[in-house]
């Protein structure tokens, strides 16, 4: 027992660093799903896109800040593409996202040139800031934590502006939006672009923190991000802008610690996706099970 607690405790800072970077995926899921009421799966491709593009640019000696910025823009483009497919051709947003992240897999291989690649030493934003950061887990927690808080505050500000409020209107009442002179398509494209820009930023940070890029780094991030979002919403709620914007960050921090605790107790890593899936199913099913008598969508 003490062994388990010790190994869990020992991993807390490392897990925190991971969760602060993977929180970007929870944010990237939250914006289309909760604000626009249009679920989006593109993050499974935009995370590795951000990572691979950053790695490829850094390998050519590109400035780390510039490489990260270009990765963010590429993520925005990926998200905008999914939204455009949905709006222009009436492809369901889920299928549009699957199409884009599947196609991005080929793009990422082309960009990186091989399935995985190490980054040239010290060519990353962390070392560019200060060489000491990558030596200390707690410095990384401080830096990434400050970044995450700043990002959350920026989103709270955004969704309280006139433009942000209009985006929320598109999500809650599709019929009303055009009658209020809101051009829904612009807000849907903008929301998807913003979401995937954030995810690609997470991908860019991940490769620079761990020192290598891998085209498979997006595999399964979606379900983890969704689980993190659900955990966060269970803890802080989602009925105000502040709560909804804090949920992905709080959820990611708690969720990854729970996973770490599970692994410390001897949970096999390969069982993790199954258990995460079960967890998401349970949280989605719970409200329906509690409202007995109404039956499921299939009328069973």
């Amino acid at each position: 027992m003490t062994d388990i607690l010790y190994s869990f405790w020992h991993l807390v800072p490392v897990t925190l660093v991971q969760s602060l970077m993977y929180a970007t995926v929870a944010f990237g899921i939250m914006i289309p799903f909760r604000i626009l009421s249009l679920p989006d799966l593109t993050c499974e491709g935009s995370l590795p896109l951000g990572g691979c593009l950053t790695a490829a640019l850094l390998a050519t000696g590109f400035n780390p800040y510039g490489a990260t910025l270009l990765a963010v823009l590429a993520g925005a483009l990926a998200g905008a593409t999914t939204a455009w497919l949905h709006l222009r051709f009436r492809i369901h947003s889920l299928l549009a996202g699957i199409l884009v992240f599947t196609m991005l897999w080929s793009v990422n291989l082309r960009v990186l040139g091989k399935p995985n690649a190490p980054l040239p030493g010290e060519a990353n934003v962390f070392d560019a800031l200060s060489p000491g950061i990558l030596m200390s887990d707690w410095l990384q927690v401080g830096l990434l934590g400050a970044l995450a808080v700043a990002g959350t505050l920026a989103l709270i500000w955004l969704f309280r502006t006139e433009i942000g409020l209009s985006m929320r209107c598109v999500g809650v009442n599709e019929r009303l939006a055009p009658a209020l002179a809101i051009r829904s398509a612009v807000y849907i494209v903008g929301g998807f672009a913003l979401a995937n820009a954030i995810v690609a930023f997470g991908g860019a940070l991940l490769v620079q923190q761990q020192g290598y890029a891998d085209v498979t780094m997006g595999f399964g991030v979606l379900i983890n991000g969704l689980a993190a979002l659900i955990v966060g919403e269970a803890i802080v709620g989602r009925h105000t802008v502040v709560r909804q914007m804090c949920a992905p960050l709080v959820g990611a921090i708690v969720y990854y610690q729970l996973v770490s605790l599970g692994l410390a107790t001897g949970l096999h890593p390969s069982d993790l996706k199954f258990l995460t899936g079960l967890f998401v199913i349970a949280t989605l099913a719970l409200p329906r099970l509690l409202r007995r008598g109404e039956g499921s969508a299939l009328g069973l």
Partner: protein
Amino acid sequence: MAQPMIRLEGLRKTFNAGTPDAKLATRDVSLEVQPGEFVAIIGGNGAGKSTLLNLIGGALSPDQGRVEIAGADVTNQPEHVRARQVARVFQDPMTGTAPMLTVEENLVLAELRARGRGWRAALTASRRERFRADLAELGLGLEDRLTARAGLLSGGQRQALALVMATLEAPDVLLLDEHTAALDPRTSATVMQATQRLVAARRLTTMMVTHNMEHALQYGSRIVMMADGGVRADLSSQDKAGLGVADLVQRFHIADDRMILS
């Protein structure tokens, strides 16, 4: 005569064109509405009343014909552009407001309809003050519920809110699509009185679709009766003076279960 606020010319709209289910919803409707007129549109189910409002509001575009608002041709203007001039209240209380947003957030969106939007804070002290005053005028106690979510209001309160939203920034044209039909008779009367007050205070050009003949007679300055996609009768305020519900029914052979004759 002054320039009409609304000018419709030969408006034709067919649904499911080219299929066995093809239905001519409006057939060559031409109509002029003067500024400040309150036109009540009556007629049976499928007469083309709602289609006509959708053509004016831009939710539908006509197969043929022309829509002019305040002298400008807006026939091909998408709804979200036309909405700067044209405000509407829907039949379903769920449609006219955003249920997950608060009363004050709904009102901000209504203000932005006419003014456009930017990166400014949506909720400000001055806006709240204005909303409180506007809602207090209504006398329904909505001014104390600015921070409540619109979905928590009753159907009548939500229609009243939708009405305030539509008239907050005076539109060139106000479209009311059976906006009291989903309410009980007492609430319906309250919302109609609020409608009349708001419309009169701002001298709004209004087109109201209704199944309630009494409302049409009482509140309309003009009554347009539609049947089978066309205008069957057009009564000016002089024409309708002295007419009762029974006269209307008799004169136009109205046979419609949904008409409220009481």
